[in-house]
Structures are given as C-alpha cells and as structure tokens.
C-alpha cells in the first residue's frame, strides 16, 4: 500500500523525466510542479515534444520519474491504488482487433473490479453515450479510427472514475465526434468529475477548462485559471478627443494611452474596470469617437508565450 498525501487529485512536484543514457540522454520533463484539485477541469497544453505525454505517462506509472514526485489521489503514481479511481485515454491506442466492443469493455470493466451484472447494465448505455450504440457485437477490426477513439473514451469511463486523464483529448475524432465528446465531458465536469487533459485544440481547452497548465521544453510556462488568464487578453479600445486641459482619470492612467494628433487611443486590458474608465472619461467631457473590443484567443496567447520562451537565451 502506498502512502497517502494531501487532498489534491494530482500532485506533481519538481518532476524530472529523462530518456536514454550517456550522450543520448534527453530530458523530456524538467522539474515541473503543479496540482489538480478535486472537481477541477485542467487543460495541459504545449507544443509537440513539450513533455505532456511524458508527464501523463508518469502519472499512470508507464514510465518512471528520474527525480521529483508524482501522486494521484495521494498515492505514488503507478501503484495499483493510484489507478483505482482513474479513467485514462492514451494518446494513440489500438484495441484488440479480435475482440468485440462488448468483450473489450467487459475486460476493462472486469479489471476495474466491476461485476458481470454491473457490466451488463453499463455497457449498452455507455456505448450509446459515446455514439457506438448497437455496435456491441462488432469486431474491433471493423472499427474506424474515430470509432476506436470513441471506444477508448468508453473504456476510460467504464468504472465511473472520479478523475479522468486524457492524453490528446479529441485525437482522431471528426467534428461531430468532438462535439459529442465535449458534451460527455461537460456532463462529467458538472457532476464533479476531475478532468485533466492535453489537447492541441486550444479552443476546446478554452471552452472546457477551469485552469490551464502550459508547458514548453519540459518546463511550466504558465498556470492559471482560464478566467484569470483570458481577462488581460481581452482588450477594449476607446478612441476619444480630449477637451482642453484634459487630465487623465486615475482609472485610465494605468492602461495604455497614446495620443495621435488630436485623438487619444486607450487600450483597456481589464474587463471589470472598463465601464469605470468609460464613465470617468465621459465625466471629464471627452468626446468618444469609437469603442471596440479586441479579443485575443488562447491560441494567440500560447504562441506568443512560446515565442517569448524560445527567444530567451
């Protein structure tokens, strides 16, 4: 039995994972630290080779940390106890082609400790949920890539886990499949399931997650709640003509104000402070010519952060 720690679902502390030996040694994860709390939906994003899959594989016990710790539900990652309440979807996985969908779910459900009666009740409903209703007795060699991915989602949910770890959430799914999966995840999120997933679809991350952990070259670049992260990304532009003797109000002074001839251009990065800025400007008699919102997507922000990180020596 592994020792139990804290209340976090996932705790990663100073995790270092290296591959290879000697001159071919490669550090895939370089001292990352983060935690996922119960009920949270956390997106794990990074470019290819950033260390996302390595981190997830370490959490599942498929590979071992060179140093640092990884814990799942307070148990050392990789122990049987740590995997008891987890549903995992690998980045790429095939399922036994000689099995039928029902047999595969019986295997995974049985390994998760479900009884035959529980499996009989759950399997048809679960297949229906992932869009494979009526495919119970179809051999998996007849499944397309998208159907295999849907089945992968079903196997991860079979034991109704308390937490889900999905490596590349919607890999191999068509737009309809992605939509279905998003609905399933939203339902699970609302029911309190902890979700930790990686994805290259940043719009998906933005719409589903409470918090984001960004990594690059094995290091955490940024981790913050989505609302906090996105707030400064949403800019509001106010173009106005200042009256004679205009004094910049305090609420506007901390934002980016530029004068261009007789016009002023103010960029407000704070959605909450925006109405106050507008009312203060109006109160000082400015003639507002134009207002506009400029939304920066998570993708733009991520690219900017990565470029900044790349530019650093």
């Amino acid at each position: 039995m592994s020792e139990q720690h804290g209340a976090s679902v996932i705790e990663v502390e100073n995790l270092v994972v290296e591959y290879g030996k000697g001159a071919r040694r490669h550090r895939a994860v370089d001292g990352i630290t983060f935690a996922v709390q119960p009920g949270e939906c956390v997106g794990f994003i990074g470019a290819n080779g950033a260390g996302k899959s390595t981190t997830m594989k370490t959490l599942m016990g498929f590979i071992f940390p060179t140093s640092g710790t990884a814990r799942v539900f307070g148990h050392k990652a990789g122990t049987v106890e740590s995997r008891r309440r987890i549903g995992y979807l690998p980045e790429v996985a095939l399922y036994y082609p000689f099995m039928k969908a029902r047999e595969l779910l019986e295997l995974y459900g049985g390994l998760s400790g479900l009884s035959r009666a529980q499996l009989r009740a759950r399997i048809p409903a679960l297949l229906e949920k992932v869009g494979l209703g009526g495919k119970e007795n179809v051999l998996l060699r007849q499944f397309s890539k998208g159907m295999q991915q849907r089945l992968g989602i079903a196997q991860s949910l079979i034991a109704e886990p308390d937490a889900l770890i999905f490596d590349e959430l919607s890999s191999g799914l068509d737009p309809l499949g992605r939509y279905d999966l998003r609905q399933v995840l939203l339902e699970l999120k609302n029911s309190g399931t902890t979700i930790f997933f990686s994805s290259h679809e940043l719009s998906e991350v933005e719409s589903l997650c409470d918090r984001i952990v960004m990594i690059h070259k094995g290091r955490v670049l940024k981790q913050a709640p989505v609302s906090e992260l996105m707030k400064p990304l949403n800019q509001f532009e106010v173009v106005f003509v200042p009256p004679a003797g205009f004094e910049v109000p305090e609420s506007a002074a901390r934002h980016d104000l530029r004068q261009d001839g007789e016009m002023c251009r103010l960029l407000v990065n704070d959605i909450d402070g925006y109405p106050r800025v507008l009312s203060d400007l109006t109160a000082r008699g400015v003639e507002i010519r134009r207002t506009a919102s400029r939304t920066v997507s998570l993708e733009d922000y991520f690219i900017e952060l990565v470029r900044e990180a790349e530019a650093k020596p």
Partner: protein
Amino acid sequence: MKPYPVWLIAKSVLLEAVRRREIYAIVLVATLLIGAVMTVDFFELEGLTKFYREVALKIMSVATALTVIVLAARQLPREFETRTIYPLMAKPISRFAFLCGKLLGVMIAAAFCFGLFMVVYLCGAAYLGSSVPWALFAQYIYLQIVMLLILATLSFWLSMLLNLDAVITIGAIFYVFAATFTTLTTYIYDFTTPIGQFLIRVVIYAVPQLTLLDLSEKAVHAQAWAPLRFATMAQLTLYGLFFSALYFSLAAIWFRRKPL
C-alpha cells in the same frame, strides 16, 4: 494478487489464440503430416503402429513447442507495438498480475492445442488398431506441459530483452539445443579435456534438459517401460518448475521496471 484479473488477461490471450486461427493451421499441418505417416506401407502392422506413435508424438511435441514459443514470445512485444498495453495497464492491475495472466493464457492455449493433437493422435491410433499405454501416455502429456511451461517462461523473459523475431529464433534454437544437448554430451564427454568437461557440466546444470521431460520414446516402446514412479515424477516436476520459476521471475523483474 486477486485471481479474477489474472483470469481476465488469460481469457483475452486465449480468445486471441482461438480467433486468430493460427492454432488450427498448425494442427491442420500436423494432422496432414501424421496422416501421411499412416500411408507408409513398408512396415508390418506392428512396425507401422510403432513408427506412427514415434513420428506422431514427435510432430506433436515439436508443433506444440513452436506454438508456445511463438504465442509467448509475441504477447508483450505485440502489446507494445499496438499500444494496447496502455489502456490495460491504466486499470488497477499490477504488472506481475498482468504477466501471470499472460502466462496462464499461453499455457491454456498450449493445452488446447495439445488437446487437439491428442484427438488427432488417438483417432489415428484407433484407426491403426494400436493400443495406447494410458498410464505412460498420461505421464508423457503431463511432462510435456511442464516442458511447455519452461519454454513459455523463457520466451517471456527473452521478450523483455529482444525483439519478436529474435525471441522466436532463440526460443526455437533453445528448444532444439536443450533437447539434444544431453544426447550429444554422452558421446563427446569422455573425449574432452577436464576444462571442457567442467564447461559441459556447467551447461548441463544451467540449461534445462528438456529430454528429461520427454517420455515419447517410452510411450512408443511401452511394453519395455513401466510408468515412472511417483517420486520420479515429483522430481521431474520440481526440476521443470525450478527453471520456469527462474525465467518467470527474471521476466517479472525486468517487466517491473520497464518503461512502457
């Protein structure tokens, strides 16, 4: 370790063996070979039945051994190659239980294959009117299973170290080598130097002598051989289990720390 997850893994191995139909192909080829033996007509009937027993049992032994080597050798490399191991090992099952399940599955598949051979063999024997020395025959089957266990565990261990092709090749060489080494050494031992004799003894003790577990000759010439005593059977069982446990432990140790 709970037995049910082990059984579930074993069942998946068995299902694969049955659905992939390789076992049937091997049994069919072996049946054709055994059938061909029955067409030989330059013996008297008694000579033919002995010839049939000898060749049929040999074909069955070799075919089952190769089936087990191939089945066992591919279990883990195939799981890695197709990445089916990830969703499996994400479930609450230990690596040791997973390995035990794989071994159990391979052994049940081997027993199933051997059972099919037995049916073919007994049908042939009945057709030729050849009597079956049941006690010795049962001992032959039992020791064959012990031998298959050694081959399966060895293949599991080798599959931790080598790729699939290499495991099958080495497994087959080992089967042939281990089965003939004892016979060879009886001819050359007296003609070798003391160092050579020492090395031969080391190899004899280090490598399982599969000929010790092969009662096919005795089953063929049953009128000249009584069934083995219980104590001898127990010793042979322990001998086989020692090597099986050794190879399986090595496989488990390797697999425990193997990155997936």
